[in-house]
């Protein structure tokens, strides 16, 4: 047993690092580093740069335009790009509907959608949750009624991240309400420009707009846009839950946050000395670093098992729980580090190119909004309570 990834993977790490160094637009990097607002163009622009290098679909096999990376390479790519302030690629096409279409889609669906996901030509969003169906997703009510070669969809989705950026939405819809709830669900691909779709913003507590409500009023969807068999959508939903668990660990991004925390604690003063020298605060940073280490080592064990041909099982839920708690912990320490300058609310300072002097230190303005926003991470993607439920049931057999 050792901790060495081997020379080939080390060379790959260097290659990714060098590529990012040369190609990540400097304004995008600056926005990421300082926690400023990203535009749709920043995110898609970076995706396109990767695509031009053949890296547009990091987790995909070569037949669909992916680089066919090993689990270790995928992990290295995630870590390096996260650590060096690259925008997170939108997951809805690449990590969600793309793999679904690859596994369950028709040839026509593959040809229509996969190349445009890899190239970032088309943006997707995920229409699962509804006002009455969050943790209990299978209770969803949005209805799709068959009418010849079409479905007519009525209902409402909510918390839909980036619906206002998206060209297409993939939805779980109810196609049979006379059977057990999991057995009457189908998976549909819906063009967001279809008549009858309305998107309304939801503003989150820190003032950001990332989630939306999406209303469907007699929206006509061709039956050919259904993925898999009618009423077999729940199988697909479960497949998705198990897919790409490892990328959720966000090791690279948490390393970048830890570095930022250390820098800020060195710049902040407590009793005339750097906050970094305060034993209490230093211990908190050390704890966060150890938590990060524990997560990284667990991730590497899972990646290593995956490389040996294993499929990550439900124990990977632990990555979701600990990774999100770590992100929240780091967010909390960053806010704590800046003392009273966590109070001013200056959203204008989060716009790139805003040139007025900042109210506090120039790193301060984004830290409380980020802290507030990060509370979402233990709620979405299957809440941490739901993840603990999965471990209890699937791993511990309770």
């Amino acid at each position: 047993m050792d901790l060495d990834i081997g020379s080939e993977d080390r060379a790959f790490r260097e290659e990714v690092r060098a590529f990012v160094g040369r190609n990540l637009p400097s304004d995008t990097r600056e926005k990421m580093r300082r926690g400023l607002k990203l535009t749709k163009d920043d995110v898609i622009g970076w995706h396109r740069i990767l695509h031009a290098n053949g890296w547009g679909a990091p987790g995909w096999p070569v037949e669909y335009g992916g680089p066919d990376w090993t689990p270790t390479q995928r992990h290295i790519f995630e870590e390096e790009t996260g650590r060096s302030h690259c925008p997170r690629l939108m997951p809805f096409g690449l990590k969600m509907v793309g793999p679904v279409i690859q596994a369950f889609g028709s040839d026509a669906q593959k040809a229509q959608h996969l190349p445009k996901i890899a190239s970032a030509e088309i943006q997707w969003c995920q229409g699962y949750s509804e006002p009455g169906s969050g943790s209990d997703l299978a209770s969803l009510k949005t209805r799709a009624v068959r009418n010849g070669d079409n479905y007519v969809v009525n209902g409402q989705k909510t918390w839909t991240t980036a619906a206002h950026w998206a060209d297409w939405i993939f939805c779980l819809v109810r196609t049979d309400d006379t059977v057990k709830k999991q057995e009457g669900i189908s998976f549909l691909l819906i063009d967001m420009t279809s008549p009858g779709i309305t998107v309304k913003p939801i503003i989150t507590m820190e003032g950001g707009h990332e989630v939306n409500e999406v209303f469907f009023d007699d929206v006509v969807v061709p039956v050919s846009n259904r993925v898999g068999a009618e009423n077999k959508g729940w199988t697909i939903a479960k497949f998705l839950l198990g897919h790409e668990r490892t990328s959720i660990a966000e090791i690279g991004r948490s390393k970048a946050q830890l570095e930022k925390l250390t820098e800020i604690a060195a710049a902040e003063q407590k009793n005339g000395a750097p906050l970094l020298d305060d034993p209490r605060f230093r211990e908190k940073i050390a704890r966060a670093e150890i938590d990060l280490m524990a997560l990284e080592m667990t991730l590497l064990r899972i990646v290593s098992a995956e490389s040996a041909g294993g499929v990550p099982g439900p124990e990977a839920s632990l990555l979701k729980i600990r990774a999100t708690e770590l992100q929240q912990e780091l967010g909390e320490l960053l806010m704590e580090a800046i003392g009273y300058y966590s109070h001013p609310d200056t959203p204008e300072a989060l716009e790139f190119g805003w040139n007025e002097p900042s109210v506090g230190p120039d790193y301060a303005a984004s830290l409380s909004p980020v802290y507030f926003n990060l509370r979402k991470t233990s709620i979405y993607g299957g809440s941490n309570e739901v993840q603990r439920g999965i471990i209890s049931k699937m791993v511990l057999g309770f």
Partner: protein
Amino acid sequence: MPFALTEEQKLLQESADRFVERDYGFDVRTRLAGSETGWGAENWARFAELGWLGVPFPEAAGGHGGGPVEAGLIAEALGKGLAVEPYLWTVVLGGGLLARAGRTDLLEELIAGKLQLATGFAEPQGRYALNDVATTAEGSSGDRSISGRKAVVFNAPSADLLIVPARTAGARTDTRGITLFLLPADADGVELRPYSTMDDSRAAEVTLSGVRAGGDAVLGEIDDGMALLEPAIDDATAVLCCEAAGVMQALVSQTQDYIKNRKQFGVPLSSFQVLQHRMAEMFIHKEQTQSMAYMAVVRAAAGDGRAASRAASAAKAYASEKGKLVGQDAIQMHGGMGMTKEMPISSFFKRITMIGSLFGDADHHLDRFAGMGAGAA
């Protein structure tokens, strides 16, 4: 009997609770927070009428002869409604300093609702240390010139008068050598950069450039401003802990209602034992914060400096830490709804978060408490 309220205190508590319940709905609060000043002048007039502005001050100054306990009861009620009126800044801290300095003339104005105050107790480099004062007051007793920067001065945008600690002697972090000055907010050389805060208060960065201060601008003794400032901040800290207890009560009861009513898997969320136990913890945190807050205002009222300081720091360390846990769990149990700006719970969460660092965070007060040594406080 420990913690038993007098008849008068009971009436005060009831009237404050009634005001918040009847007249301070979340929609009212949202409207006021978004208004030009960020709080309600009509409410301030009500406070004056109800006698709340005079509650903690001596009868000789036109007050009601109460103290931190009475102010704490009001603050607790205001916390339940997340009131945006600057009671803490004008009445508790500003008024507390005026009372300690014997400025009854100004207290009368304050009690009548005609005076707003702000105190610049923090500087950009100073974190939570009251003694870290780089602002200087140069010249001789009758004519000084004050220059420096004050960080995140709450209520400064509405203030008529600013209370400004400035250094008249000693080195930057010396406890001696700080003098408190009372300056008109519109004096020459006072510059404000106003903003809203994360919890919908208003504050400003205050830059002082050669502001002239005569002898009558001095509050308390020259070089001995800390003798006023530290106990006044302790009192305000104790009162703030009462507000924190009020905010936590709201967080608990709103979450309790939410999980009773929200159904998933065909049952109320409150039927899940993990959530029941978390709510039981939240309840315990809120109860104990309230106990600590009451202890702190009682000690403050007794006016025994060291015991009051220990109690304030103990209560604040406790409230900061437990308030954070209660706030985070309240959001978590609301699921996606908890993340929205629209849902009141997120505003309560932001307020409890910001209270966490006001007058010093948990670490600051742990340090201070530990530094004061053991002792039956």
